[in-house]
């Protein structure tokens, strides 16, 4: 599925370096939800960002789309879009920027449509918010053309949101948020509330949009790695506010190099024969509370492959396009972490697992931000 060209030779569409963002409450300690994250998206590329609840993936999406509003503050980092620097600390984003340069499709967007307004009025709003001179009829015509281009029925324009199914609603908001042909679409958990059939249709539509150059790149934020397998060219795995590994989709799924990536992939239950045959081991413990993250490698307290040096900040093994941030990965170049992780996890005694569980969960994030909820 990863048939894209070699993005290394093309110029990055957006390039983020050292992004650090924190939730700063009026009282109490700040929570650094995204810590020194660098990520590139190249022309025509779909980059998946995966991780568990509370790892900072939605926050990253908000920052990159300049939607960081208090109490979320950007503490540092640089963002370039098409080679031009964007001031992340400046609160006043030009209005033309959103939706035209970068568009954010937030989590649960399908439920954000006002129940008393027809879809066509949303469409007009979106177009005319950016250019008030556009005639209503022209805006509608443009939307209708776009819907037809993507094989969606034009009649949805006349519908109220409640007349559309969940899957159709999500497709419609996706079309609306890309009406102005933004360079980059940041889609936050767009498939999570949908059943598998609607997921597939939405994924196909997003690929079609990139193929037809309606959008030039996508950052697809999700907790669902199998979905990324069907859409992403590259996958970034986040843990506790940091990107721990980035690699091409096939590469990451077949040979994850960071123990966390390996463990996460190992806990994915897909209807495949190997899932029936083996006892999946999971990961003991829970992700850390970001108020007080562990020093050194943040996965260390739960990592079955931890070593003494892991108390220091982990190195970047690889280049910015393709790396694992881990001592083990550095020492075992080009090796998959899966066999070593499985062996180490099996060796771990039940007492040890319970101890890790107790130690890490005490400070665990209580509520879950991005979780899969049955509709």
């Amino acid at each position, binding site marked *: 599925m990863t048939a894209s060209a070699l993005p290394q030779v093309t110029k990055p569409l957006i390039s983020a370096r050292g992004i650090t963002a924190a939730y700063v409450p009026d009282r109490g300690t700040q929570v650094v939800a995204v810590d020194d994250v660098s990520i590139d998206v190249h022309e025509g590329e779909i980059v998946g960002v995966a991780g*568990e*609840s509370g790892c900072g993936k939605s926050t990253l999406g908000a920052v990159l789309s300049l939607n960081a509003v208090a109490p979320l503050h950007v503490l540092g980092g640089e963002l370039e879009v098409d080679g031009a620097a964007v001031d992340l600390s400046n609160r006043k984003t030009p209005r033309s920027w959103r939706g035209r340069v970068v568009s954010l499709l937030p989590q649960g967007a399908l439920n954000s449509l006002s129940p008393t307004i027809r879809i066509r009025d949303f469409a007009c709003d979106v177009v005319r918010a950016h250019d008030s001179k556009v005639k209503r009829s022209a805006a509608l015509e443009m939307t209708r053309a776009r819907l037809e281009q993507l094989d969606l029925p034009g009649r949805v324009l006349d519908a109220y949101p409640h007349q559309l199914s969940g899957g159709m609603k999500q497709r419609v908001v996706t079309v609306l948020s890309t009406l102005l042909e933004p360079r980059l679409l940041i889609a936050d958990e767009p498939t999570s509330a949908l*059943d*598998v*059939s609607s*997921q*597939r249709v939405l994924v196909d539509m997003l690929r079609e949009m990139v193929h037809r150059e309606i959008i030039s790149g996508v950052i697809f934020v999700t*907790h*669902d*790695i*199998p*979905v990324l*397998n*069907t859409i992403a060219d590259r996958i970034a795995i986040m843990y506790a506010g940091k990107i721990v590994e980035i690699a091409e989709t096939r590469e990451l*799924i*077949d*040979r994850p190099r960071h123990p966390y990536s390996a*463990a*996460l*992939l190992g*806990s*994915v*239950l*897909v*209807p*495949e*024969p*190997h*899932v*029936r045959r*083996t*006892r*999946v*081991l*999971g*990961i*003991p413990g*829970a992700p850390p509370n970001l108020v007080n993250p562990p020093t050194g490698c943040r996965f260390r307290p739960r990592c079955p492959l931890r070593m003494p040096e892991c108390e220091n900040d982990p190195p970047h093994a690889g280049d910015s396009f393709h790396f694992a941030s881990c001592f083990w990965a550095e020492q075992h170049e080009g090796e*998959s972490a*899966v*066999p070593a992780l*499985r*062996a180490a996890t099996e060796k771990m005694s*039940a007492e040890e*697992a*319970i101890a890790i*569980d*107790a130690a890490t*969960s*005490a400070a*665990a*994030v*209580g*509520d*879950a931000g991005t*979780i*899969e*909820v*049955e*509709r």
Partner: protein
Amino acid sequence: MSEPANTGDLLVAEHVSRDFGHGEHTVKAVADVSFTVGRREIVSIVGESGSGKTTVARIVLKLLAPTAGTLSFDGHDVTKLGRAGLKAYWRNVQAVFQDPFSAFNQFFTVRRLLERSAKLDATATRGGRIEEALGHVGLPPETMAKRPHQLSGGQRQRVMIARALMFAPKLLVADEATSMLDASLRVNILNVLQDLRNDLGMSILFITHDIGQACYVSDRILVMSKGEIVESGPTDDVIFAPQHEYTRRLLADVPKLHEDETSLGSASG
């Protein structure tokens, strides 16, 4: 555990239906459904939203009366039960639901929460029972002093399972019990369920929209669509050789990790 009368299936549902609404607005949430849950068996009901799987769970839990059909448990007809009958039934059939975040009273410690449940069963000897139940789900006794906010989602759900276990039920109904948990924590819960079956001989009715989880945990799968069971059978048959058109379509849409089995050598070690 009391020795069951080891004959026949534990739970037998025959031609069970449930309608909602009246007249032309009648919705057949469950339409003429028959199935069994054997002793020491994990049975999954899979289906999309609105397929009626939760209605089946509520009927099995006796939280909802069926419009038609009969339900028998451990050889006894339990379609209609009085107050005392229900109490005895719930001693044998316990449930774990979807949301471990709202199932707790924030101000209660785990001990207080579990003791309140234990009080419902006069035969329960308190302290030891609670510790034993927590042990089954892999939680240390110190957990009893904790409050919900000190526990992760996975631990909360395990406390909810421990709560159900204090009654040593014969059947545990898990309705989307792992859907709100992250992948790494979810696996631990599913392993706990399998251990309960293996070690305590419990039967489990596992209800989910996630075919991957059903495939991992269950012995037998029932596929529901629009209130009907369209296919049922051993997990391997249903998942890897589906007969019904609906099951095939559902399985085709589920995203996979590996396109073919050849790449699995490295993955499963």
